[in-house]
């Protein structure tokens, strides 16, 4: 094998290797995203946004059912009078919130 051919092979493999490393590092990772469950301005629980879950939060007669799936969180059902929390779209980006003001209940996506 000639020297220049060897050099070309080497360069191509180098490009391939560095492209793979670069793309691997650029990969967006959702790891670490969490959901704070807040009741009356107090964080009562922190959930992992990557672990599917369905859970009822009951305080007295106030119930909010929270669902986590596909890296998003939403309020599936609630017995509040305005149903704004239930009608809110699922959230997944850091800083987004879903609020249930009648119940003083809040979901917030955090790092």
């Amino acid at each position, binding site marked *: 094998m000639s020297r220049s051919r060897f050099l*070309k092979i080497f360069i*191509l*493999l180098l490009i*391939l290797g560095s*492209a*793979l490393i670069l*793309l691997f590092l*650029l*990969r967006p990772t959702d790891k670490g995203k969490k959901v704070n469950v807040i009741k009356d301005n107090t964080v009562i629980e922190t959930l992992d946004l990557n672990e599917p879950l369905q859970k009822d939060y009951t305080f007295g007669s106030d119930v909010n059912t929270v669902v986590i799936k596909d890296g998003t969180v939403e309020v599936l059902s609630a017995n509040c009078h305005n149903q704004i929390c239930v009608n809110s779209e699922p959230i997944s980006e850091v800083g987004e919130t879903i609020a249930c003001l009648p119940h003083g209940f809040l979901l917030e996506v955090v790092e």
Partner: protein
Amino acid sequence: MKTKDLVLDGLLVAVGVALGFLESLIPFPLPVPGAKYGFANLVTVYSLYELPLIQTVLILMARILISGFLFGSLSSLLYSLSGAVLSLLIMILLKRQVPLLLVSIFGGIFHNVGQLITACLVTGTWGLFYTYGFFLVLVGSLTGLTVGILSKLFLRASERIFHGLR
């Protein structure tokens, strides 16, 4: 075009269409309809080394159009076309420079890169590049490697079969 060439070309198109159908049965992680792994590149690599360039291009176009009309939609045609054309261009460029295996690996990578670029253009989200880039380049080099090894085997076998025929 001689009858022998015509028969061989037809055969290669048929093999390509069959491979394309087989791989359409394997789910592809890119969230767009019609994106594929690129195993049908086997036919392209084979003809690139065995036949004149014009025949390679004709076989490729025939394969993509037939596959598209038989199993696909307009959008899947767009994806296979962009993947195949980019892949072929890269392989033509590299053919004289480096060994077949590396040519095929880069053909496989750029098959997927072409589809990814099309997906980004169609959906208007360049973020797809970051999300799927690593996976597609990795998978592309693996299918390219597989295709390269198989092409070598086929080229060796066809040399024996066609020896004296052509």
